[in-house]
């Protein structure tokens, strides 16, 4: 899901950079107000986790690969705005040091994986878990948070790919940037995430939440204040 350089037109990546600066500004302001020294190690570990989980490329036999991102579990454990910063740092390092995702696409990639995913996951978790203290319901909510968060993030990425042929074509009618239309990009990316990568993200999200609730429940942002 890391858009490389050249796949997005400037008409797409410049506004997305703009949007990202706004999200980063808000997130940093919130962190400045709310982050305590005690949480810093968890923030660092969250970013490290996201970096590593993205290296586990999962194959679709004979086809493409994909991976989990960790944006959902980070949003549940540390809050969605903290997840914005944790995952953004990962994506920027990936682009600059490891060439994973383009430099021009940092705004887009951060928007998709560090903003859309944490918030969709967090809202999904809140909506489904409600104020419940029922463990099964909480873990089901966590699975769906990861599953839906990653899938929506993939669909937003696919839309960014898919609108490129509408934005820019050469005089002979060939697309200048990402070549496939919405009618190809959206179904392909939605399906591969609905059928495989999203499930992995969901399982990882639920398992990690279970581990934290069992061992260190007071860390968990999204269920703070519930009985345990």
């Amino acid at each position, binding site marked *: 899901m890391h858009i490389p350089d*050249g796949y997005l037109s400037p008409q797409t990546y410049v506004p997305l950079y703009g949007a990202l600066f706004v999200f980063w500004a808000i997130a940093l302001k919130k962190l400045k107000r709310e982050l305590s020294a005690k949480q810093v190690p968890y923030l660092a570990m969250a970013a490290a986790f996201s970096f590593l989980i993205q290296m586990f490329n999962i194959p679709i036999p004979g086809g493409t690969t994909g991976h989990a991102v960790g944006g959902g579990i980070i949003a549940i454990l540390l809050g969605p705005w903290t997840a914005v910063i944790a995952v953004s740092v990962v994506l920027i390092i990936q682009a600059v040091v490891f060439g994973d995702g383009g430099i021009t696409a940092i705004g887009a990639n951060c928007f998709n994986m560090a903003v859309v995913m944490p918030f969709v996951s967090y809202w999904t978790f809140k909506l489904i878990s409600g104020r419940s203290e029922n463990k099964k319901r909480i873990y089901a909510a966590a699975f769906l948070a990861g599953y839906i968060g990653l899938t929506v993030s993939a669909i937003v990425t696919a839309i960014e790919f898919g609108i490129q042929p509408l934005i820019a074509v050469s005089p002979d009618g060939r697309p200048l940037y990402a070549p496939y239309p919405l009618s190809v990009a959206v179904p392909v990316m939605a399906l591969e995430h609905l059928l495989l990568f999203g499930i992995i993200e969901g399982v990882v999200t639920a398992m990690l939440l279970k581990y934290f609730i069992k061992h260190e429940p007071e860390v968990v942002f999204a269920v703070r204040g519930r009985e345990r």
Partner: protein
Amino acid sequence: MTAFQKKLWVGLIIMALLTPLGIILPQKFNAGDAWGEWGTDTLEKLLGYVPEGLKKLTDLWKAPLADYSLGENPDFARQVISYIISGILGIAIVGLVIYVISRLLVKKS
């Protein structure tokens, strides 16, 4: 560092050591690039051409450890080692950046 946090760091290090699975499995199952992340050679094969605008931007940045690999065209064993080193290096850099940001943000109490 609490005992719980120590355990989590151990888990992360183990994850880093296991990262080569992320290249071994795709190879075993004959899976290629992620959708929409093809290089220009693959695009040429898929489309018969390389989009003009894409061609101009594609080599904009030369990442020091492109594709999480040390050295160009490494053999498989080297790729596996590169991946583990990238994993360890990645968490070190990411952790460092987070500590710097946090230092600037968190008031000393």
